[in-house]
């Protein structure tokens, strides 16, 4: 018996209207077709789709992502093969190869890393298997090595987080960044966007502390504890995911701070974080929507029917702040 079984119920009801919306494609953005890619038209219904997930389905983002793929496949009656790389990149490479060997006609990949996909792309190209990558980009040529890329713009997420931070702190003071795990390009891009925007719009805001919290709540808490001891005057903390942000909240609570004493901005949009906004501990959450299923399958469907699909499908992410957190809580995952 769990402590708060009841709370879980709410989730599913709201999930329906929290699907991804595509940002208006910029004029002139590139598209791809089966002919250009060099495959053949097939009917998605008879096809086998292979899905390679990068990390264990153990955090809200991955859970929602895998679930949404599975749900959509079930809805469309498509045969789905799945594999999970358990955060090991070498395993993901062999996972995808296994999926190909098992006869996947189409691939959806949530890459653990942007680089190092040559062997997989070659193998897929040899079999003319179209690839759609979700949530993270593969560094390769679109419409040649893969069909399209559906994801949020991480740099943009960083920029928007910076906007929120500037607003919350009034653009002055010292802020800290809780970095994601080292070597991860989500980390790199969310940092880049944040720093760029701060430098550009609020020179009064200084990034004085950047330490990794490995995307986990525990590390986020521990690092923040050290931070508030050595820099008691810190005005804001930018956490590159919700978990670290919640860790920071725990640390602040532990140190006897009040909600709002230190402004926290996070990225992801999980339930707990949005609840944090409602409670006043978190100033803003930039959404990174994990529900890739509908969009991914729509793209595959269009593509296999011979229609044009965009090469870069950037999702319009939402954001939560004290204005909308309460009513949008249901949209969070």
């Amino acid at each position, binding site marked *: *018996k*769990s402590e708060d079984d009841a709370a879980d119920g709410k989730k599913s009801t709201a999930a329906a209207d929290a699907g991804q919306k595509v940002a208006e494609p910029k004029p002139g953005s590139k598209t791809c077709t089966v002919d250009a890619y060099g495959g053949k038209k097939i009917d998605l219904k008879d096809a086998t789709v292979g899905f390679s997930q990068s990390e264990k389905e*153990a*955090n809200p983002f991955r859970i929602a992502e895998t679930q949404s793929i599975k749900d959509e496949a079930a809805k469309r009656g498509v045969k789905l093969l799945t594999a999970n790389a358990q955060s090991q990149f070498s395993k993901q490479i062999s996972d995808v190869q296994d999926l190909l060997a098992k006869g996947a006609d189409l691939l959806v990949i949530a890459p653990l890393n942007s680089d190092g996909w040559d062997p997989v792309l070659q193998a897929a190209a040899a079999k003319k298997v179209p690839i759609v990558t979700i949530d993270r980009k593969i560094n390769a040529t679109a419409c040649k090595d893969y069909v399209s890329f559906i994801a949020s713009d991480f740099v943009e997420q960083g920029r928007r987080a910076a906007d929120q931070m500037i607003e919350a702190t009034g653009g002055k003071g010292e802020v800290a960044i809780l970095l994601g795990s080292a070597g991860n390009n989500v980390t790199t891009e969310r940092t880049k966007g944040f720093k760029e925007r701060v430098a550009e719009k609020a020179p009064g805001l200084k990034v004085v502390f*950047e*330490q990794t919290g490995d995307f986990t*709540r525990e590390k986020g*808490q521990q690092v923040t504890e*050290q931070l508030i001891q*050595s820099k008691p005057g810190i005005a804001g903390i930018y956490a590159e995911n919700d978990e670290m942000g919640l860790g920071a909240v725990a640390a602040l609570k532990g140190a006897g701070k009040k909600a709002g004493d230190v402004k926290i901005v996070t990225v992801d949009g999980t339930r707990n974080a949005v609840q944090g906004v409602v409670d006043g501990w978190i100033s803003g959450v930039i959404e990174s929507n994990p529900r890739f299923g509908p969009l991914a399958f729509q793209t595959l469907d269009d593509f296999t029917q011979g229609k044009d699909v965009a090469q870069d499908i950037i999702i319009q992410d939402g954001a939560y702040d004290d204005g909308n957190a309460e009513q949008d809580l249901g949209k969070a995952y």
Partner: protein
Amino acid sequence: MAEAALKTVPLDKARALQWLQRYGVYAGVALLLVVNIVITPHFLSAENFRTQAVQVAPVIIVALGMALVIGTEGVDLSVGAVMALAASVTALYLGYGLLPALLVVALFAAGVGLANGALVALVGVQPIVATLALMVGGRGLALVLLPQLKDLRNPQLASLGSGDVLGIPYLILIAAVLALLVAFTVRRTTFGRQLLAIGDSRPAAQLAGLPVRRVLIVVYVVSALLAAVAGVLATARLQASDPTSLGNLMELSAITAVVVGGTPLTGGRVNIAGTVAGAVLIQLLTATLIKHDLPPSWTQIAQAVVIVAAVYAARGRGKR
């Protein structure tokens, strides 16, 4: 006397070496404290010391069990997984109240400890491989039980994580009591002596009629139980159960603390005070690097250097 004069020089060196061998860790801790007090702003405050102590407490608790295991010439790689398992089980059973949940946690941990102990003592599998199997499987089980992080809102658990008596947080208190208990066990009990004898020479212990298998199994169970305590405390502190990342790499931190603290990996000797100091040394080092906002690459390299330096200083003297 000429002879005496001749001897003083090498003798002093030998003595210094011996001193370093015995007190090196403590000297290291003292040095880091002094350096920090000088260069780190706001270091010298009760709050700060409390933070460091609270953060290191779970590591110490795990390292205590690890020290016992290493004393028997074994090693336990599954401690991190047991922490995760403890977190999962706590979350699952907290609905029945804290105490019942803790009992179930203890059962699970004892199960893992028994499995480790049985593989090592009854089947004769090398500890490193036996516990590796449980490290992989244990974390898997934790995730099967609770596939994702879960927030816990239990006031009792919350007070366990952040409450205190007379200003001393429970976490520190528990770690201290456990450390004393384990140190006492090693020094004063039959079990402690038997453990050391087994670690020093297993065939001799066997022929001396010691209950070798029982002692080994108990040691692995104790290690698992201590890891579970650490897991529960970490969960209580976090107010959330996080089976994915809780206890990751804890086995390495614990082993490092034990070895840096002067317990040899070859068994037969256990240094509990040193183990505590070893854990504190690594904690202070990490804190220093974080507080001065040095990049992670630095942290890792610095840890590597400190580990080697500490073990080098404490090494048994080589060829005479």
